Structures are given as structure tokens and as C-alpha cells.
């Protein structure tokens, strides 16, 4: 499902003395099957954009096209249910989306709401739980009597249970421990690769952008400043620094050693694996030119 923003603006509390403009002149397109990362400073409008992806907010200017639906400021709030099934959003604060008495009911709520039977909803719930690193002992607990990271996992499970076509993630790993972060990011990536899920990820972790995304959007103060492949955008390290955004750790390190050692990598490495490959090339070619020729495997 392609998603396109045309001249989108959004003003909170429009028409009141408190109105504040959060988005303006937004043009962007998210292709079906892509993995899009949205980055930008605190308050730049990332969460506001995400809430347009399933018409939770309607633009106050312009239009948002989601598959064959076009949402404009005057779109009727009725008949949006189909959209909510196709586009699942994990919110920035997980408490915002938990509400049932038990974890089991909370996860099963979405599927049941969209017409799945009791037994199947239960089966879906049991299949999803281990994906977010929880076991069945959690099913009967209250989702509010959990640790922060456990709540986050339940919130993610509830959205995965919807089996959406587009998965929208607002800093989904904040508060997760590193193992959980890696496992759950891998689950999202597998869904993307194996089932062609479209993913839209908001993150402050440039390493996550480098590791997973094939499309990147940079927001600043409510509008899009750049859109392109992460490798293109991370080439512009100085521009990003000037926007106080930074680059992945591997890019930063690659730039440091290229400058220091006078090396020039064939392509800018985005991940540590890519960086290690580039470094190995330099070590090996240097060796072939062969000064003293230390044997491979010699320790220092």
C-alpha cells in the first residue's frame, strides 16, 4: 500500500487561542514494501506525521493518500475502520494503548474487534507472545502491573496481532533492554523481508536506520528537509551534524580513520560489518604490496 502526503499541514487545536502549527508543506511518499525511517529533533513533528498514517489525525491542510483512500481535512470520521486494520501503530508511550484487564485480552482485542473468532484470537495471541519475549505466565496479569519494558512488549504484541499491512513504530524500542531491542527489531525486519510488510519507523538511533531502513526522511521544525536512501543521506555527515542529528557509529568512525590514515573507502560503510569489510580490504591490499609480510594469525 503506497502512502503519499501532498502539501500536508497540521495545526493542533486549530481555531482556538492555543492553536499551534506542528506540520507544514509536507510532501513525502512511502512505497509499498519499503522500510522507511523518519528522523528529526525533539518536537520536529515525527509522532504527528505517524498519526496521519491511519487517519488518527486528519491533515488540517492538504491530503494524505493511503492505498486507495484519500484523507483530507473534511474526510468523514466514519468508515475508517478498514484503514485501522491495515495500518497498525505502536505509540511512543505504551501505556497509551493498553486498556484491557489482562495481557491476554489486550493482545486479543484487536483481532476480535476486526471479526476474528475467540479461539483464533487466542491462537494468534499465543503465537505472538514469544516474538516479543514474553511467556504465557503473562497472559492473566494486568497490563498495568508490569515493568516499563514489559508494557512496551505487550503494546507491540497487540499491534502485531492485528497482522497489519503497514507497521508504524514510534520509537518502539525505548525502554527495552538491548537483547529485547535486537530481538524485536529482528522480528520487524523478518516480517518486512518475508511477508513484504511496509514499515515506518521513528527513531533517534541512527544505527537502527543504517541496519534496517531502505528509505529515510529527515524532518526539521515541522517539514521534510531530506528524503532518500540512508547511504546518500549519511554521506552528508556535516549537514547532519549541523542539524544536530549525527550519523551511525560506523559512519563516524569510518570518517575518522579515512581522514587520519588517508584512506578512501569504495563506498561509505553504514554498519560495523560493512566497516570491518572495508578495513580488511585495506589491511590485505597493503599486505600484498607486502613490506615485511607478517603471517596471518600472528598476534600482536
Amino acid at each position, binding site marked *: 500500500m503506497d502512502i503519499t502526503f501532498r502539501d500536508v499541514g497540521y495545526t493542533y487545536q486549530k481555531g482556538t487561542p492555543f492553536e499551534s502549527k506542528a506540520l507544514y508543506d509536507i510532501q513525502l511518499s512511502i512505497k509499498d514494501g519499503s522500510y522507511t525511517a523518519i528522523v528529526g529533533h*525533539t518536537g520536529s513533528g515525527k509522532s504527528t506525521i505517524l498519526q496521519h498514517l491511519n487517519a488518527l489525525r486528519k491533515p488540517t491542510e492538504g491530503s494524505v493518500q493511503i492505498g486507495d483512500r484519500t484523507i483530507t481535512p473534511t474526510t468523514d470520521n466514519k468508515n475508517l475502520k478498514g484503514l485501522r486494520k491495515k495500518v497498525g501503530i505502536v505509540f511512543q*508511550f505504551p*501505556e497509551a494503548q493498553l486498556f484491557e484487564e489482562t495481557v491476554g485480552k489486550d493482545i486479543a482485542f484487536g483481532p476480535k474487534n476486526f471479526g476474528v473468532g475467540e479461539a483464533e484470537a487466542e491462537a494468534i495471541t499465543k503465537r505472538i507472545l514469544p516474538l516479543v519475549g514474553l511467556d504465557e505466565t503473562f497472559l492473566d496479569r494486568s497490563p498495568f502491573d508490569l*515493568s*516499563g519494558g514489559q508494557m512496551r512488549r505487550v503494546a507491540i504484541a497487540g499491534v502485531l496481532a492485528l497482522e497489519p499491512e503497514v507497521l508504524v513504530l514510534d520509537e518502539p524500542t525505548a*525502554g527495552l533492554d*538491548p*537483547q529485547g531491542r535486537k530481538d524485536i527489531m529482528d522480528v520487524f525486519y523478518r516480517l518486512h523481508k518475508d511477508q513484504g510488510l511496509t514499515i515506518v519507523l521513528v527513531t533517534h538511533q541512527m544505527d537502527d536506520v543504517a541496519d534496517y531502513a531502505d528509505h529515510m526522511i529527515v524532518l526539521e521544525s515541522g517539514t521534510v528537509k531530506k528524503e532518500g536512501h540512508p547511504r546518500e543521506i549519511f554521506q552528508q555527515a556535516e549537514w547532519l551534524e549541523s542539524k544536530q542529528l549525527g550519523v551511525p557509529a560506523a559512519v563516524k568512525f569510518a570518517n575518522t580513520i579515512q581522514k587520519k590514515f588517508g584512506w578512501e573507502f569504495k563506498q561509505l560503510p553504514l554498519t560495523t560489518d560493512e566497516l*570491518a569489510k572495508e578495513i580488511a580490504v585495506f589491511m590485505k591490499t597493503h599486505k600484498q604490496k607486502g613490506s615485511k609480510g607478517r603471517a596471518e*594469525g600472528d598476534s600482536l
Partner: protein
Amino acid sequence: MDNIITLNNIMFRYLEEEERPALNGISLSIERGEWVAIIGPNGSGKSTLAKTINGLIEPDTGEVTVSGLLLNEENIWDIRAKVGMVFQNPDNQFVGSTVEDDVAFGLENQGIPREEMQRRIRYALDKVQMTDFADREPARLSGGQKQRVAIAGIVALQPEIIILDEATSMLDPKGRNEVLSTVKDVKKRENLSVLSITHDIDEAAAANRVLVIQEGKVVREGTPEEIFSYGEQLIEMGLDLPFPERLKASLKKEGLDVPNEYLTEEGMVDFLWTLHSEM
């Protein structure tokens, strides 16, 4: 030794019938002026531990001593005035109808004179770069803005101890560093003690000492360098590998020899340079 916080053999279960207690015999002490980071996997008991310190949770057994006072029902309010806590979810913490009122709230409660109050509010909002938002409703802010306001509230209070429970999780790396250096500034001036609960390696690195919690117990402690040198085991402890460690693992896969000891980024640059010139 002047301990600001001492926990002695704390046991706590949320429900009586629970098999695994949330806190399972925790003993620790924090010196006045010290900055201690607490790390550990999800559900290991970090937030529960923090809540015992200001009496939000009463341990089943064991004692909590804060700034020389053995915590009990009589002195709980005195103790809460000494402990400034930033909760994991800032929405649980806002009381004011505007950002400014919210920051003022704690100060009014302590009877701080008006002028001093104004000065502290201005300072705190300025430090977290939220001055322009003083008249806004806290609930109507972005995630990172909410976390900044929650931190401003504590900075303005100037308590003896600041507890940060994943208080920077929604900030970008630069924003996080700004907030941490604000806390450092205040700490230097006021001999503040800091307890920071975090999954972020940079935040842990800001500490004098790191405690690792697992299943309600303190399982390791050490300086950040000592803890970071655990390499791959760090992941189980609830921290990510530092970048040089990750790069080391990738270089190994490429068949290069890498040293075992912990390398900083500069150490890594030096190592690569030596390797390259020796080849």
C-alpha cells in the same frame, strides 16, 4: 563514610503469592556526591528498587536509610523532600496545567520564596531548552519535550538525591548528553547524589559506579570501565556493547586479529594504525 542512601537486605513482593520476589535481598549504599548507574534487563526490579527509596513502596523486610534517616511513616515526607525522582513515563508525573506551573509545583510545596522560585524555574527550563514552552500544557508536548520538562522539575527542586528512571529514553543522543551535562553541573555545585537507571551505555558511562541488577538482586558492581570490559556478557546485563567492541567482533569475522582487552574509540584507531603499519 557519609552514605546518602543505604539499603539493607530489602525483600519485596508485589503479590503475596508471587514465587519470585521483585526485590530479593538487595543491599547497597551510595555515598553522598556519588553518581551510580543501575542497569539490568526488563523486569529485573530497577524501578521497584527506586520506589523503595522514596517510600512509594514499602519493603516486606529490610531497611532503607536516606541521608541518615531510617525511613518510617513519620519521616516519609522529609525523605521525599530530599529525593527528586523522574519517572519512567513522564505522563505519570505532571501535576501542573502549564509547564511553568508544573516546575513550580514542587517548589511551592517546599515554601521557597517567590523570587528564588522564579529564578530556579527560569534556570531549569533554560537548561533543558524548554523556555519557549513555559505556557504550554505538559500533556500536549512531544515525547522528548515531556521528558525535558520532567527533568526541569527535578533540577529546579535541587534535592539531595536525583533518581532518573530511564528519564532520557526518548531523547536523541545530543539531547541526552545535554541533559546529562546539566545534571553534572548541578551535581558539582550542590554536591548532589545521582542514581540513574538506564539501558544506555553513554548514560552508564557518566557514572562513578555501575550496579547490575538481575532478578531482584545486585549481581555485579564496578566502575564503568570494569563493567564495560565484560564484552559480550554486557548484553545479558542489560547494556549494549560499546561501538569498539562491536567493531572488534566484526573485524574478527573478517579474519583479523584483535586484542582482548577493552578498547576505547581512540584505542581502536591506534590499534588499527599499528596493525596497518606493521603489515
